């Protein structure tokens, strides 16, 4: 099943028909924004596009300025309900935990961000009453995107504790995934290592019914949907990994788990939201780890259009490489 089929089978009725007839390049499609009563917006080829009722695509900026938005497709509430039902395999009760966290992972590793009216009980999020905003992030495994970075993360067959940093949507998880795959399978820089992944939000391996939808390597073990702090401990105790990977670290509990993992002889590959080093050290939880020189490599991701650039620093914050 290709990306087209994986995405089309999430849509019902009018939306599906419009998507079927639209000339969408699913390889360059990044995100689909669906809101009740608002135009369907696609992020594709580095541009924004509106989907029209007749199933054609129009460049968003041009339509807004010149043509107007009368012809654009505006979903009705049932269109969004159908997407959620399909994404949950007609079983919303089995995905309440994910909905509470604001996302659903579907076959192919695509992620549906959900937002709407939150149901609160005693200050805790119990679910969502009316889901009126959906963002479908199309999964693209970029095999080999870690090639330029990996030589700086591995030295004499040993992996450095590494933190990958960028603002959201710059490809941190994609880079982390490929590094995991190469370290697990082995490459010219190191032999294959046992890698354990705590995939709290099912983004790295994108497990669907327990099966990773992305290639994460032969020696990789995935603990899916588990909170990172507890997952790290579990994996160290039960799986004896050489390298542990986790996405979007940040809480105090996670930092403690990271310290514990390092004291157990495991190497770490992690990602975090941050645009620059100043933003990193403003986060109290991570500041200490940076000062303690826990991470030996910091990889900053930059992006211009579809081009990615990397800046790699060592533990003393001396730049190792700039790839531009």
């Amino acid at each position, binding site marked *: 099943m290709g990306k087209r089929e994986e995405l089309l089978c999430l849509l019902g009725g009018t939306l599906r028909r419009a998507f079927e007839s639209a000339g969408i390049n699913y390889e360059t499609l990044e995100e689909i924004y669906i809101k009740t009563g608002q135009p369907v917006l696609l992020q594709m080829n580095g541009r924004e596009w509106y989907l029209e009722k007749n199933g054609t695509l129009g460049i968003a900026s041009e339509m807004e300025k010149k043509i107007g938005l009368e012809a654009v497709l505006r979903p009705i509430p049932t269109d969004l309900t159908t997407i959620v*039902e399909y994404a949950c*395999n*007609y079983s919303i*009760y089995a995905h309440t935990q994910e909905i509470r966290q604001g996302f659903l992972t579907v076959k192919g590793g695509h992620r549906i961000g959900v937002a709407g009216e939150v149901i609160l009980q005693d200050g805790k999020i119990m679910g969502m009453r009316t889901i009126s905003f959906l963002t479908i992030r199309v999964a693209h495994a970029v095999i080999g995107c870690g090639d330029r970075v990996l030589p700086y993360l591995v030295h004499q067959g040993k992996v450095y504790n590494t933190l990958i940093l960028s603002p959201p949507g710059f490809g941190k998880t994609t880079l982390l995934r490929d590094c995991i795959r190469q370290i697990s399978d082995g490459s010219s820089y190191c032999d294959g290592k046992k890698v354990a992944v705590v995939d709290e939000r099912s983004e790295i391996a994108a497990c669907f019914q327990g099966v990773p939808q992305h290639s994460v390597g032969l020696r990789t073990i995935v603990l899916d949907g588990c909170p990172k702090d507890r997952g790290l401990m579990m994996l160290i105790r039960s799986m004896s990994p050489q390298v542990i990977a986790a996405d979007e670290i940040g809480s105090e509990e996670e930092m403690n788990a990271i310290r514990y993992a390092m004291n157990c002889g495991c190497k770490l590959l992690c990602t975090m939201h941050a645009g620059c080093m100043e933003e990193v050290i403003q986060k109290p939880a991570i500041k200490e780890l940076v000062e303690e020189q826990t991470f030996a490599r910091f990889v900053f991701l930059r992006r211009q259009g579809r081009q990615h650039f990397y800046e790699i620093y060592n533990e003393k914050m001396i730049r190792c490489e700039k790839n531009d």
Partner: protein
Amino acid sequence: MVFSAALGIGMRWVAELKNRLVQMGYLEKALTFLLSEISYENSSVPESLIKIGTRFPNSFGEQLIEMGEELLEKNGGRLEEIWIHYMDKISKQLKLKGYEAEEILQLGTVLGSADKKLQTDAIQGGLQMLREALKDENSKLDGKQKVSITLSIAGGFMTIILLI
């Protein structure tokens, strides 16, 4: 000959009744499995139906599998519609009475929703109804068996008398 034929009709009637009880037993088991799949395994409805269907090596099981597969295809249908379509066929095969069939069809309106308790309660309601119906039919079976044989014999005699 007339006597034997009348007896045969009576016996067939009883066999049909027994068959209905067996079929209702399948449905009762299937609902029990569904309850377990949803409440303990947290499995999705389509996966549960396929899994349960494989436990019944007959047309009943095949239809459950077919329903599960149709749901997985996500061809635009809603769970309620697909459930009603298949369960209507199954209810007719099982010769469920009007209110029994209605209770089973109504399950389609709650299955798959976010409220797990609502679903498990609805399934339990359906199960209770089926269990009561089974108990009732079972208790009547012996009596019906005797009545059918007696009526068959009486019918046979009556036919002979008429023929004479």
